């Protein structure tokens, strides 16, 4: 206990000291900055400002003097203008010398008049006087035209710098760069120029005043806070006038060559800006400002200077502070020990009294508050020791009483626990029983079955919700009544049996009974009645269960009816099918061609008698392999069957040869409708021998007819034209020659007629094969026009083609197309008396259209509809036909040719007296895919 007080005191002292040190450490930077850094920076600022004001003073003075000199120049100009003098130079020199005496600080000065301003005929510039300490050293005559002051680069070139460029232009006075004398006579010099104006404020030239600025620069160089600080003065031309190293550098530098100049961004006039910049790895605080004259003054102080000063101060501060604190701790500790020691002693005594030791006594050493406290304690010990004895006695009595009470209490507690356990058990049992009963009751109440409980007499004690629902009686109407309220419709024997079973035999009764609802409706129910017997075997009451099965009964009846109906339908349909089958069989059997249905395994399912007859198979079943063998030489049956399944369509083979017969075979796949499953195939064979023979005959007829007709005609025409071509001069009689000519024409026409007739027949019977190829419609037209031009020219007509774009590639029989186009163009020429026949070709997405227009008489409306018929010309009737022209088959043949090739032919236009246009189309050649 005594320890803790001391510890506390030490802790308090320690904490207080630590806190003060911590506060010091945390705020020492702020404190140091407040105390040391700002004053230092202010000192530097003061130096900067002093330097700037020194520059300003200099500037001001120099500008003033330059301005005075300019004024003098203006006065001289005004006085001497227009009065030429041979002594003008001398006059001006004197004038200058007089004026320069007022510039003791100057080292020189001059007046520079712009050429042509003073005397236009003379290249006059002005003199310059060198001056030192009010004494003229020598004059420099610059009247030679070679010396063009105004084109000197240092005059015209002001290097662009952000801060002075525009300002410089506003000024009338400005600095030029300082420069060195080559001989080294002058150290540093700066020049101020001032413009001179005439009365109209037009610049006539300028005055120049030169000063030594060595004094000023020396002052600036010395005004640095530390030797390693930098200093800078830049004139308005952005030339560096002064840096630290100026004394040893003889070449002026432009600021553009100094990389760190970029640190001085937009300085302000009179307002010092401070920034930080890094040069060669050293951080500087840069102070910079614009002087009154627009020069840049800058000072670079290494940041380390300030930091060093501050950190030195900080270290000594901490050491001093810590030493002081340690001393303070020691003093405080010993002072406090003097107070705490008596308190600790007193505490020890009181502690012992507390433990019952009343023999102790305080040794009082002093009369202060602690001494008085010691005496008080001694007195208190005496009183306490007496009272303690009294208390001990009473305590002994109390202890014996308490023991007695405690034994009685524990007895009572045991009894209570025992009783509580018994009661809890009882309550739990009762609860679980009542829950079970409730569940059971709910189940019975809400089951869909009737549940009735009656007494031994049959009076209803309980009826559930289903009873109310089915019978239509309310629960109140039912209770106390007998079930005969809705039952009782069965026979006496039924009830006798019932009662005997449940009452006498005491067994359950079950059966189906008829009941009546309250609304009179009858219903059927199954019932189960069970007697409930007590322990002595006496019936206590009956439980009846009933299920309404009337709906079920009704459904059964419907099902029975439906079944009968369907059976009837089945019988009927079966009969229909049988009839159908019989008809089909009869039909198949009556077919003139052979018919077989086979399944996928080539088993014959159905065949007709014609099949056997066709293949001359008497009796015995026909098999597919049998037929395949019979026709095998010309017809691969198996392969064809496979093909028809792959193609999913019927295939027909015309040239099946069996013995002397020609057969046409057809195979068709049989596919089940819904799923498309292949289930078999149909095989048909038809005897086409007769048709085949007929066909052959017709073919031969055409060949022979055409040949036999042409041959004599060839002889007639050939001989006639021989006479015409080779022997005309041998015939003296003109009549004979004319006869020969007529015969020749007739033979020609006859040949044409024969050809046309044969062509028509063959086309009509579809016996013409078209040799389809892709060809150019343009070329076709060109070819026909070439062939026909000569004939047309005889009539004084011409045939031309319209110019059309597009390749117009046609897919058709080229020879046949040529035939049609020739026919139409020939018609156009033949049926016109004059004019031009125009052929056009146009192409759309599917067809190429050929248009042939003439300028003939046109075709009357009546005849237009007959044009493409057989033997029709544009004439009136058969009897009035113009037989000299043609057979009248041309357009008919054209139509027969064009249509099978997928095109059409028609009269497009016909106007009486103006002409007609015939048109036909041919399909466009499709570009090959891929």
């Amino acid at each position, binding site marked *: 206990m005594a320890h803790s007080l001391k510890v506390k005191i030490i802790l308090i002292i320690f904490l207080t000291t630590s806190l003060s040190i911590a506060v010091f450490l945390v705020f020492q930077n702020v404190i140091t900055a407040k105390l040391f850094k700002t004053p230092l920076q202010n000192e530097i600022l003061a130096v900067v400002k002093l330097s700037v004001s020194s520059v300003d003073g200099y500037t001001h003075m120099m500008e003033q003097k330059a301005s005075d000199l300019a004024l003098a120049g203006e006065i001289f100009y005004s006085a001497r203008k227009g009065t030429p003098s041979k002594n003008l130079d001398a006059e001006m020199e004197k004038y200058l010398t007089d004026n320069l005496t007022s510039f003791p600080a100057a080292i020189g000065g001059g007046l520079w008049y712009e050429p042509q301003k003073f005397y236009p005929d003379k290249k006059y510039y002005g003199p310059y006087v060198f001056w030192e300490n009010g004494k003229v050293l020598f004059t420099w005559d610059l009247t030679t035209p070679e010396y063009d002051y105004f084109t000197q680069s240092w005059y015209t070139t002001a290097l662009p710098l952000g801060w002075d460029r525009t300002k410089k232009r506003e000024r009338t006075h400005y600095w030029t760069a300082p420069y060195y004398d080559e001989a080294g006579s002058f150290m540093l010099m700066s020049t101020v120029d001032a413009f001179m104006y005439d009365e109209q404020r037009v610049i006539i030239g300028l005055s120049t005043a030169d000063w030594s600025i060595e004094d000023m620069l020396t002052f600036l160089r010395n005004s640095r806070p530390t030797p390693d600080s930098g200093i800078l003065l830049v004139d308005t031309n952005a030339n560096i006038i002064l840096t630290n190293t100026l004394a040893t550098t003889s070449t002026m530098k432009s600021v553009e060559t100094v990389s760190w100049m970029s640190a001085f961004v937009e300085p302000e006039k009179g307002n010092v800006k401070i920034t930080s910049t890094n040069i060669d790895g050293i951080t500087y605080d840069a102070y910079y400002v614009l002087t009154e004259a627009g020069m840049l003054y800058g000072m670079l102080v290494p940041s380390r200077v300030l930091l060093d000063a501050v950190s030195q101060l900080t270290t000594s501060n901490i050491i001093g502070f810590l030493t002081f604190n340690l001393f303070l701790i020691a003093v405080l500790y010993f002072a406090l020990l003097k107070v705490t020691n008596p308190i600790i002693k007193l505490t020890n005594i009181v502690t012992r009294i507390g433990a019952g030791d009343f023999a102790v006594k305080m040794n009082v050493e002093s009369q202060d508050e602690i001494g008085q406290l010691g005496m008080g304690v001694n007195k208190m010990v005496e009183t306490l020791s007496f009272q303690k004895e009294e208390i001990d006695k009473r305590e002994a009595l109390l202890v014996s009483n308490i023991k007695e009470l405690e034994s009685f209490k524990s007895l009572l507690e045991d009894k209570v626990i025992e009783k509580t356990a018994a009661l809890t058990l009882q309550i739990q049992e009762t609860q679980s029983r009542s829950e079970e009963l409730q569940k059971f009751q709910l189940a019975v109440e809400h089951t869909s079955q009737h549940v009735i409980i009656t007494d031994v007499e049959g009076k209803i004690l309980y009826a559930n919700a289903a009873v109310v629902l089915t019978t239509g009686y309310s629960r109140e109407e039912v209770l106390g009544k007998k079930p005969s309220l809705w039952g009782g419709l069965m026979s006496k024997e039924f009830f006798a049996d019932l009662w005997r079973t449940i009452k006498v035999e005491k067994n359950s009764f079950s059966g189906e009974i008829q009941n009546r609802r309250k609304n009179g409706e009858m219903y059927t129910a199954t019932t189960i009645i069970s007697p409930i017997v007590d322990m002595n075997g006496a019936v206590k009451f009956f439980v009846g269960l009933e299920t309404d099965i009337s709906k079920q009964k009704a459904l059964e009846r419907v099902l029975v009816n439906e079944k009968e109906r369907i059976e009837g339908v089945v019988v009927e349909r079966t009969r229909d099918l049988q009839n159908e089958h019989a008809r089909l069989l009869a039909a198949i059997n009556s077919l003139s061609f052979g018919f077989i249905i086979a399944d996928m395994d080539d088993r014959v399912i159905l065949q007709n008698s014609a099949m056997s007859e066709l293949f001359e198979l008497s009796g015995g079943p026909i098999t597919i392999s049998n037929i395949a063998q019979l026709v095998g030489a010309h017809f691969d049956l198996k392969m064809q069957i496979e093909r028809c399944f792959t193609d999913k369509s019927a295939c027909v083979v015309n040239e099946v040869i069996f013995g002397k017969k020609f057969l046409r075979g057809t195979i068709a796949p049989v596919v089940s409708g819904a799923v498309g499953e292949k289930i078999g195939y149909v095989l048909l064979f038809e005897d086409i021998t007769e048709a085949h023979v007929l066909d052959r005959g017709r073919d031969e007829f*055409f*060949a*022979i007819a*055409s*040949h036999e007709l*042409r*041959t*004599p*005609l*060839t*002889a007639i*025409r*050939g*001989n006639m*034209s*021989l006479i015409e*071509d*080779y022997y005309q001069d041998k015939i003296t009689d003109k009549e004979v020659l004319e006869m020969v000519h007529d015969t020749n024409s007739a033979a020609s026409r006859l*040949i044409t007629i*024969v*050809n046309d007739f*044969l062509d028509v027949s*063959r086309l009509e019977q579809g016996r*013409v*094969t078209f*040799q389809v190829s892709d060809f150019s419609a343009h070329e076709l037209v060109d070819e026909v026009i070439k062939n026909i031009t000569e004939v047309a020219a005889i009539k004084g007509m011409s045939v031309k083609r319209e110019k059309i774009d597009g390749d117009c590639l046609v897919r058709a029989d080229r*020879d046949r197309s040529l035939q049609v186009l020739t026919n139409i163009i020939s018609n156009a020429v033949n049926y016109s008396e004059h004019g031009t026949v125009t052929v056009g070709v146009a192409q759309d997405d599917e067809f190429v259209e050929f248009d042939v227009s003439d300028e003939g008489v046109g075709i009357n409306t009546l005849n237009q509809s007959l044009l493409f018929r057989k033997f029709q010309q544009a004439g009136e009737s058969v009897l009035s036909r113009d037989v000299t022209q043609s057979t009248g088959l041309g357009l008919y043949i054209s139509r027969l040719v064009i249509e099978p090739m997928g095109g059409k032919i028609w009269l497009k236009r016909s106007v009486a007296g103006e002409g007609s246009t015939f048109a036909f189309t041919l399909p466009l050649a499709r570009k090959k895919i891929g």
Partner: protein
Amino acid sequence: MISEYSIKLNFMNINSRLICLVEDDPLIIRLYQRIFKLNNYELKVADNGEVAITLLSGLAELPVVILLDIMMPKLSGFDVLKFIKENENIKSVPVIMLTNLASKEDHIRALDMGAAMYLVKSHHTPKELIGLIESFLAQHKEGTSPIAA
């Protein structure tokens, strides 16, 4: 039969002017004899297929062209054409079908079998025929006959 219809012609130049005509109709034979004579050709005639084969097998000099009818007794023009094209000695001689069968099928069949040209007699006058044959021969000589290609 050969001697009956063959006529000796004067040679006008050293180039061969020999032409074989296979034709059964006397009217036509006479017609063509006239026109070829008029144009200085020597014409050897066979009046049916069998005679044609005999004639062609025994020729001392190859004709410049064989004119071949189709519809003839005994052997047809196609049979003769087949014989010519299978016979090494004469298969190089161009064959021009000269017939009155005008069907496209016959035309194509003949060209397929190696005929160089197909002419329908009734379509041309004898003068035209000479013109056609001569222009064909001119082209054939140059080896650039478009028809035989």
